[in-house]
């Protein structure tokens, strides 16, 4: 009942991800300069783009929550930020690997995109502890939404401010116009696959949360137990 359409979506996601990896491995040409190491680009960059858009998406859902005060929107906002956080960890790890292979160091401070991403990640890493520290469910949802909106607006500002202070050395793949056609195509397919993966995970987590909420409310009805749930949690319940 909660997982409607999830099977089709999962199959589509698997096909897209496998297809994207196949394109990366066999179709996209080797980078003349970086060789095989450059292939991580097709994982790292789409993941970063999807994670950042996911953070902003969470902020938009939070606006909807504050307008309607429907806990469903809070759940959606929470799940959107949660999945983005997981992807963000992946972005930092793949970014560090890429930096090590192409620049010889795990971390570079004079790289605006990397540094901004870390700051945004550190900000969102406080989202769960903050929810966890508020016991009242309704207040937790409201405060989390205020946080999500503020942080969502912070994302572009942070990128602008960090970029303003340094002269970038990042391989600026976009804008210079030198990315050949097959690479572009592979990149776009990878981006699409990553977005689809994000959406599938998002739907799965929402379905699980809804099912779990329904289960516990049924259990309480059956056991005729109207004691409130005492377990503290950062995840919203409906």
């Amino acid at each position, binding site marked *: 009942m909660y997982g409607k359409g999830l099977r089709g979506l999962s199959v589509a996601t698997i096909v897209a991800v496998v297809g994207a990896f196949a394109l990366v491995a066999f179709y996209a040409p080797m980078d003349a300069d970086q060789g095989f190491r450059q292939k991580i680009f097709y994982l790292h960059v789409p993941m970063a783009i999807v994670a950042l858009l996911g953070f902003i998406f969470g902020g938009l859902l939070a606006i909807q929550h504050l307008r309607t005060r429907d806990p469903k929107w809070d759940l959606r906002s929470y799940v959107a930020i949660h999945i983005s956080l997981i992807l963000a960890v992946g972005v930092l790890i793949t970014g560090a690997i890429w930096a090590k292979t192409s620049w010889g160091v795990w971390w570079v401070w004079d790289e605006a995109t990397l540094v901004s991403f870390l700051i*945004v990640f*550190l*900000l969102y890493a406080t989202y769960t*502890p*903050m929810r966890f520290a508020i016991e009242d469910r*309704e207040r937790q949802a409201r405060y989390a939404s205020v946080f999500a909106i503020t942080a969502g607006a*912070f994302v572009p500002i942070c990128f602008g*401010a960090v970029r303003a202070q340094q002269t970038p050395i990042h391989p600026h793949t976009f804008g210079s116009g030198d990315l050949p056609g097959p690479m572009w195509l592979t990149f776009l397919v990878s981006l699409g696959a990553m977005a689809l993966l994000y959406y599938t995970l998002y739907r799965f987590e929402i379905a699980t949360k809804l099912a779990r909420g329904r289960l516990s409310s049924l259990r309480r009805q059956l056991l005729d137990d109207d004691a409130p749930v005492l377990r503290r949690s950062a995840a919203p319940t409906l």
Partner: protein
Amino acid sequence: MRVLSALLRKELRLELRTLESVPGMALFSVTTFVVFHFGLAQAQVEGDLAAGILVVTLLFAGMLGLNRLYVADEEQGGFDGFLLAPVDRTWLFIAKALALFTYLVVLEIVMVPAFVLLLLGPTLSLGELGPLVGILALADAGFAIIAALIGAIAVRTRARDLIGPLIALPLLVPVVIATARGLEPLLSEGAHGGVPGKWLAILALYDLVFGLLAVAVFDPLLED
């Protein structure tokens, strides 16, 4: 406007009578300079290092203010009293931000001379005072806006002293960048071309965006 002046007077009177925040912040900042002196093993600093020390000290001293900002309202019924009054809730945010801005200005009146005396190598000329005050004022405004918003979130959580700085620090990184880079030429040895307008513009833009945003999202924090 009458609401705002009443709220602001209440804040400032409370601070004057209890002396809870500002003296502690000022003392903390001077102690931090001493800590920096020993930590860096330098008698005098200049340029980017001096700017960094000044900004970081201001930031951490300000965190003390953030943590104290709403405690009296939460613990002694100030929120309840305010909610009973038929006034717009946004005024509370503006009053808190203005109060914290005032604290920070008072703090800097102590802190900047102490910094010049204890650590700064190059002498500050009178002509540099204007840009210095301008940058610090814009930085204070940004800090006060973020702190008044995040403080209201943090005060209602368990572990409030932890949650507040944890959220506020990443949010304030752009302010730190712009303030440190902007102050750098003022604290450097020799001639310089004044403060680059870029940093003033970034600070002003940050203040504007987050000021409007905070006003827009503050109301839901005070609903119960």
